[in-house]
């Protein structure tokens, strides 16, 4: 039924064989560990898709409830800001991919550089969003019960407040993920410049770049939904 | 097997499709019994027949494709049959006949308000003529409720902000109970209305006069019945304790302080105004949440309530 292949370590640190210091003890090879970590990240990204998916669904249903108000409210968003942000995030995805490539090819300095560039792009994204939000608040375009814009075509309708509630919730949740991504990328960049990543171990860079692509992808859906529909 | 049906379901079959639904229920019941015994009898048999014996060798039976297909397909076909049967039954009351008497139902915490085509309104008391198709159009003024008449086998949620509806045709004259079937807070289980299925003559008479039961009670007794049935007890106690509204005990003839600082004496005029325009005078320490009973209380009911309050010294 079972045969002995190897005696497992009784003393965890008195290994006979060499293995990478990053390898955790329940894995038999680094490759197994890397593949497993990747699966874990993909599963986590699936949960993110479902979370945002709920908000997208809610938005869609509210749009069919308040079609006129939503169309009117769309116009109040700045298309150029949204478009610029889209380009910025696409560039940041490219720099993230490059960071992974640099890590895998043992170019630590360039890896760190690309990571910092990604952080920079994310920073630009957040600045543009901050500008948009400030401008919206000046016009009274607040979410929920704080909505105080005047000059709507259907005054008294809840549709406008609902639109901006969803706008701020979805871009806010997305922005939170951008901030978290910035933090993680910065941490990675510091580690990269210390030479912690190589072709033997670049898992964190790979995983966080994957996370970053999802953050970008969510924006790719947000942008047309909020900015382009007429 | 009528005794079994009466055990498992409401005894009364008060509407046209109650009989269909009961029949469907009993059919599923017997189908389930057969399936259940079909599982449990073998289980008990195997447990006894194949109980542990030292040295017994068990066969290595990993699968039997034919059997597995059979016991997947046969239940599937039974399910398909039940599905169609269920849809047919559902359509009977999801889509009503053209000619129906429309009654507006408004639910609020924690009472029922019914409005008839001619404007007559009633609280917690629904009268319908027998053998006529009734179309209920329902909404709520606050939270989710549900109008459920067990004897009629009908139930529908009532959603604030929109109208929900269903149709039914009552077939037996008599008194039935309706209950709220969607949790709505403290008074959820007190939110009952009586459903009276009347002969056409009795129905017409009720619409005119609100019935004649009031003549069989003293005014104080009749008032107490209104207190219990019209929703007053949800907010007013008669034992001296404070609830959502002031107690009725000992208030008759005494002064009461209002929230604008003035004082009034509790007399018949004050009580009538409180029922019809509750916001006009609000007692100090209470909120202005009492709904109006304008159009919801008949004259004899108002007089009864006044007499009852007077008697609570």
């Amino acid at each position: 039924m079972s045969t002995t292949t190897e005696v497992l370590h009784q003393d965890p640190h008195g290994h006979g064989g060499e293995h990478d210091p990053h390898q955790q003890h329940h894995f038999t090879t680094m490759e197994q560990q890397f593949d497993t970590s990747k699966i874990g990240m993909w599963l986590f990204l699936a949960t993110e898709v479902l979370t945002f998916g709920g908000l997208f669904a809610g938005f869609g249903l509210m749009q069919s409830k308040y079609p006129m108000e939503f169309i009117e409210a769309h116009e109040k968003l700045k298309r150029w800001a949204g478009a610029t942000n889209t380009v910025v995030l696409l560039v940041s995805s490219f720099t993230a991919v490059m960071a992974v490539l640099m890590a895998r090819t043992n170019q630590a300095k360039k890896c760190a550089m690309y990571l910092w560039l990604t952080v920079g792009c994310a920073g630009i994204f957040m600045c543009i969003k901050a500008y948009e939000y400030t401008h919206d608040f000046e016009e009274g375009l607040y979410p929920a019960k704080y909505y105080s814009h005047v000059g709507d075509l259907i005054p008294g309708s809840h549709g406008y407040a609902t639109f901006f509630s969803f706008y701020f919730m979805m871009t806010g949740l997305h922005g939170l993920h951008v901030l978290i991504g910035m933090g993680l990328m910065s941490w990675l960049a510091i580690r990269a410049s210390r030479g912690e990543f190589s072709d033997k171990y670049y898992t964190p860079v790979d995983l966080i770049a994957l996370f970053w692509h999802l953050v970008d992808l969510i924006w790719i859906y947000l942008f047309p939904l909020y900015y382009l529909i007429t | 097997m009528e005794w079994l049906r009466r055990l498992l379901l409401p005894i009364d079959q008060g509407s046209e499709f109650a009989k269909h639904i009961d029949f469907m229920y009993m059919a599923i019941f017997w189908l389930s019994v057969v399936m259940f015994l079909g599982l449990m009898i073998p289980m008990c048999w195997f447990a006894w027949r194949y109980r542990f014996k030292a040295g017994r060798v068990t066969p290595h039976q990993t699968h039997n494709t034919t059997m597995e297909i059979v016991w997947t397909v046969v239940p599937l076909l039974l399910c398909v049959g039940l599905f169609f049967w269920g849809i047919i039954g559902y359509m009977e009351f999801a889509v009503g006949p053209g000619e129906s008497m429309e009654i507006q139902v408004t639910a609020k915490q924690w009472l029922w308000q019914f409005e008839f085509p001619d404007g007559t309104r009633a609280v917690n008391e629904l009268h319908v003529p027998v053998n006529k198709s009734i179309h209920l159009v329902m909404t709520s003024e606050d939270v989710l409720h549900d109008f459920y008449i067990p004897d009629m086998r009908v139930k529908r949620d009532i959603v604030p902000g929109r109208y929900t509806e269903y149709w039914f045709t009552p077939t037996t004259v008599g008194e039935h109970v309706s209950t709220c079937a969607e949790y709505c807070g403290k008074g959820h289980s007190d939110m009952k209305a009586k459903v009276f299925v009347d002969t056409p003559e009795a129905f017409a008479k009720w619409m005119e006069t609100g019935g004649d039961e009031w003549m069989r009670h003293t005014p104080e007794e009749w008032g107490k019945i209104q207190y219990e049935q019209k929703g007053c007890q949800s907010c007013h106690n008669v034992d001296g304790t404070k609830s959502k509204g002031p107690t009725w005990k000992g208030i008759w003839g005494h002064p009461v302080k209002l929230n604008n600082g003035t004082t009034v004496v509790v007399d018949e005029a004050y009580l009538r105004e409180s029922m019809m325009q509750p916001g006009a005078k609000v007692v100090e320490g209470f909120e202005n949440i009492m709904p109006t009973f304008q159009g919801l209380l008949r004259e004899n009911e108002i007089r009864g309530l006044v007499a009852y309050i007077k008697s609570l010294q």
Partner: protein
Amino acid sequence: MEHTLTSGSVLGDRPRPVKNYLNETTGIKSWLTTVDHKRIGIMYLCAVCTAFLLGGIFALLVRLSLLNPQHTLFGKQWVTAEMYNRFFTLHGAIMVFLFIIPAIPASLANFVLPMMLGAKDVAFPRINLMSFYLWCIGAVMAIGSMVIGAVDTGWTFYTPYSTTTDGAVGLMTMAVFILGFSSIFTGLNFIATVHKLRAPGMGWFDMPLFVWGIYATGVIQILATPVLAITLVLLLIERVFQIGIFDSRIGGDPVLFQHFFWFYSHPAVYIMILPGMAIISEIIPTFSRKTIFGYRAIAYSSVSLALLSFIVWGHHLFVAGESDLANVVFSALTFLVAIPSGVKMFNWLTTMYKGNISFETPMLYAMSFLFLFAIGGLTGIFFSTLAVDIHLTDTYFVVAHFHYVMMGGTVIAFLGGLHYWWPKMTGRMYSEKWGRIATALVFIGFNMTFGSQFIMGGQGMPRRYFNYLDQFQPIHAFSTYGSWVLGSGLFMTAIYLLASLKTGPLAPDNPWGGTTMEWESSSPPVVHNFEEQPVFEHEPYDYRHRTVTHV
């Protein structure tokens, strides 16, 4: 290869190791900072059993409130409607979110699944520990909400009542939010473990069926729980900021909340039952000493249940204001989801045919499961039949149905699994005599409590009702007496299990003669699970060449 097995009385083939996962390191810090899946499983076990006790106390209070329509004990009224509404809400919320969703995966599966695969731990041990701490945080928040005002919305939090009522709705929903992440990380961990950490030679169809069940559960945990998370966040935001999504007074749609809520909560009930079914798939072949019948069918049915569970949520809204077309579609799909469960029942039964069956406590629980889950599943058919659902929904019939599947199904399976793996986890045998007595009490008490509720519900007794018509009093009283029998059985179980830790005989490696890999370790296992790396060489549940000489 001949191998004569004894089970029960003699220590295993090798000497019992002195150090095992329980005593290798000591002190509370070694437990609180552990990443050993076995220790985390034990901590979770204590945690969920405590939650079960709390939820059970509320259940007893609910039943006690309904003993008579006057709500009196010894002549004095002791409970009000407001108190009652809090009792049933807290009973539901604690049982669903603190107990039944995490119970089997996070305690039993955490312990056993890696060992079944021949692995040393789960894929992400630190995330496993984090998942436990998230549970603890959620539990503290949930208990906190009870203290600062409690919740009276029902565990389903329907709007607009939940967006406007007083009480600690915000804190409770955020507790559930945190608990949701605990659940997600558990599922995530198991999926990765099953994919990558199987022993050499073990293919997908060589895994124990318990693993298939937990895997399918993990899929649901990953995909469904985030929707609950965002729904509760929206509920909280609606309550505080009035967005206008669920509250009709400000332009929202209460039925939308129900759709969002049940989109998670229906798959959630499969998170509850699949692990239970997974346990039964282990117990029955072991105690029948015969290979499982229909391995592939059971494996496929687990996965198909996971997938189908996502497309039937509308059956909770048949009278709620859903369109007729949606009602018809969901009715059809609900019938479809019944089939895989039926297939499993037939397979388990056929496993017993020509077996060699002994009736220790785990097997008694497994047979109880077959009985109770059959009733629970069959009564579900009443609800998928659209016309009949109208009369029965929101009555005690549905309360009885879901208790039969959740308690008669999952809790019974949990108890079976607990007894089955107790020797492995603790190194002790529990008292079989007390086990049988307690199982009988639980079985009888359960049927008394909930079987009677089918009758009440069919007669028209609505649920969540504090006051009721006098005609229902005899059945309510009977149900309450049943709850006392049930409670005493469960209480007795806790006592003899805990007592076994001190006074139970030492357990052999494989007391039941099981064929899955966890039985090849010592009882309790060493820290790294196996002293020798197992290699998988035979079909799962292979009882050929095993002749049992005595029980």
